């Protein structure tokens, strides 16, 4: 009682003036959503509930907490899979907006919560749908969270692998120590020689996880074009998207030139190698 008596007095309802210009920070310390942000959050929620996966993934909640008990992210972040599930069920745009800022990105996608849930909720899937919508609407916090992924997204979109050995540089992975990055500090030769010492020609590249043929990368890009992934990426990073299109255009030209060069060898072959035109 004594402590409460010393707390600053605060009205339980907002004054007219406060309602017109609410404080920038909520009591939790989080920034309050602007009217525009709130409108975007409501749009995202409508799309979320309209997504066919919503009704497949959200099946109810017993509030038992089994999901959170086994969650690795819950041990280190202000994050709970139970909260994510309940936000999905509520339809409250304010709490969804709060979750989109950081919480959805804490999830490890390990599926431990799914495995423990008696109701069969696909909580990892729910979070993935939230993330997808956040990306496609270009939510500012999402652009910031995914800013370090430009290099890996470029690789993924153009050759279809996530990493390359020349990405794993000692300067960026200092916490991995001096021996785990193919560094010449350990063996006295460069990274290119370390890769040549792998006994498979397909793996000896430093620019990708493995050599990917031009036809294969163009087929992959066709998938991205046809399934909306490229448009989605535009919401996240329009400049990167334009750069990717330029890279692929060059590869298409290279592919057509090669088709002319290898015309004799390709004659008589059947299947995609004979018909695919980039």
């Amino acid at each position, binding site marked *: 009682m004594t402590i409460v008596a010393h707390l600053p007095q605060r009205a339980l309802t907002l004054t007219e003036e406060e309602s017109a210009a609410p404080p920038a920070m909520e009591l939790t310390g989080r920034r309050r959503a602007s009217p525009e942000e709130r409108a975007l959050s409501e749009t995202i929620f409508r799309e979320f509930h309209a997504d066919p996966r919503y009704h497949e993934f959200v099946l109810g909640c017993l509030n038992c907490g089994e999901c959170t008990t086994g969650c690795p992210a819950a041990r280190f*972040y202000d994050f709970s899979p139970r909260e994510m599930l309940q936000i999905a069920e509520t339809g409250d745009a304010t709490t969804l907006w709060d979750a989109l800022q950081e919480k959805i990105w804490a999830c490890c996608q390990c599926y431990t919560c799914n495995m423990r849930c008696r109701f069969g909720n696909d909580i990892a899937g729910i979070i993935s749908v939230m993330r997808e919508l956040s990306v496609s609407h270009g939510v500012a916090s999402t652009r910031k969270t995914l800013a370090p992924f430009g290099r890996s997204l470029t690789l993924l979109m153009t050759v*279809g692998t996530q*990493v390359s050995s020349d990405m794993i540089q000692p300067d960026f992975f200092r916490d991995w*120590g001096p021996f785990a990055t193919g560094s010449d500090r350990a063996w006295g*030769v460069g990274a290119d020689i370390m890769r040549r*010492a*792998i006994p498979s020609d397909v793996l000896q590249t430093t620019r990708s996880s493995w050599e*990917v043929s031009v036809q294969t990368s163009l087929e992959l890009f066709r998938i991205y074009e046809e399934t909306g992934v490229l448009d989605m990426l535009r919401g996240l990073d329009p400049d990167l998207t334009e750069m990717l299109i330029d890279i692929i255009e060059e590869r298409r030209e290279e592919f057509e030139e*090669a088709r002319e060069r290898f015309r004799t060898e390709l004659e008589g072959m059947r299947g995609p190698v004979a018909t695919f035109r980039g």
Partner: protein
Amino acid sequence: MLSANEIRKVVQERNQHQKGTGKKVVDVREEMERLEAAGEIVIHRIRPENRPVEVSTLFGWKKRIPTDRLWHHKSCGQCGNIPGYPSSLLWLMNETGRTYLNEPHQTSCTAWNYHGTATSNPVALAAVAARNFHRAYETGHFPLIHCGTSYGDYKEMRKLLVENATVRAKVRDVLGKMGRELVLPEEIVHYSEWVHVMAPEILARQKHTVEGIVATVHEPCHYYKMVPEDAVYDEAIYAGQRPAVPSGILMALGAKVADYSTWYDCCGFGFRHILSEREFSRSFANLRKIRPMVEEAHADVAITSDTGCVTTLDKSQWIGKAHGLPYMLPVLSDVQFAALAMGAHPYKIAQVHWHAASAEALMTKMGIDWKAAKAEFREYLQALKNGQAPELLHPAHGEIETYFAINKGQVLPDEAPAAPAGAGGRSR
């Protein structure tokens, strides 16, 4: 905690609850047969030349694991930063006389990116899976999936393509634009399942004893938590209460597989976290996995069977000494461990030098003369630097394959069931 009995109970309770939703655990393979009969899909069947071995899954359903004539679906993380993982597998196949293709005509599953950044969608993921499935099919080789996330993702995508006619139609349309058909493999097979059923042949070629070795197993989440009903269980391993892989091969070789309290926890990879928020990955890996493995189980080595798990558990340890966690427990994949036990070169084949936690003490305990092997490898590196051609486990690909996914003389399986391996197959 997450024992097979517990998982079965959870799934049964789900089915009770979900009577009205229509979402049940069903054997998707039965529906595939109906779809093929209706002309909706083609099933890539396991054939006698694939020399299959039968195993059991969570509910006792039978799963056939092909052991020959395989199409390697590589893992981007393995090839990128722990290349001894795939090279050990290729070496084991050569040693046991299995044929395969290791091609540049494969994309990754792209699911690492999806689980990390969400810059994709289910139709795209399903189309990527189906493109790779078709490429394997047109070569007449059965896909063998190296990565646990690819394995989990492909099982999800196979289920999606079977259950959702709209997605199926979209994917078929996209594939049609590149001259491909919708083909689904009879089984989605993880390489660790291949290692598991190959145990007798590996054991017959074992050169180094591992009887004094204490191994702790990290079970990869995407192996048994994404689509639980398809993971392999065996009554002889943990009384059927935990997945049989990769523990089975360790037990067969004679290692002591020791338990620890957090065996069911993930490794801390987190997909996004390992690249941009490694404070989490390394804290989780060291505190929740490596420390219990060392302090509770007194492990000599941690063994796992997925890309992200080897990466996170191994590479997170070096920085641990700054936080009073100076364990440096060697972390290897099951297939690297098996290859070492069979006498593979520790550096040329198992490529243990890409790992942060040294495997030298472990190799000493296994009776491997790693000092001589290391000296030999140093000389080999200098020879490569001076222009010597590298030693390869299979023939190199020609320049034409830099551009084109050529047929290489293979024909579609339905046209010639017993077609021999093409020019891109293995050799010593």
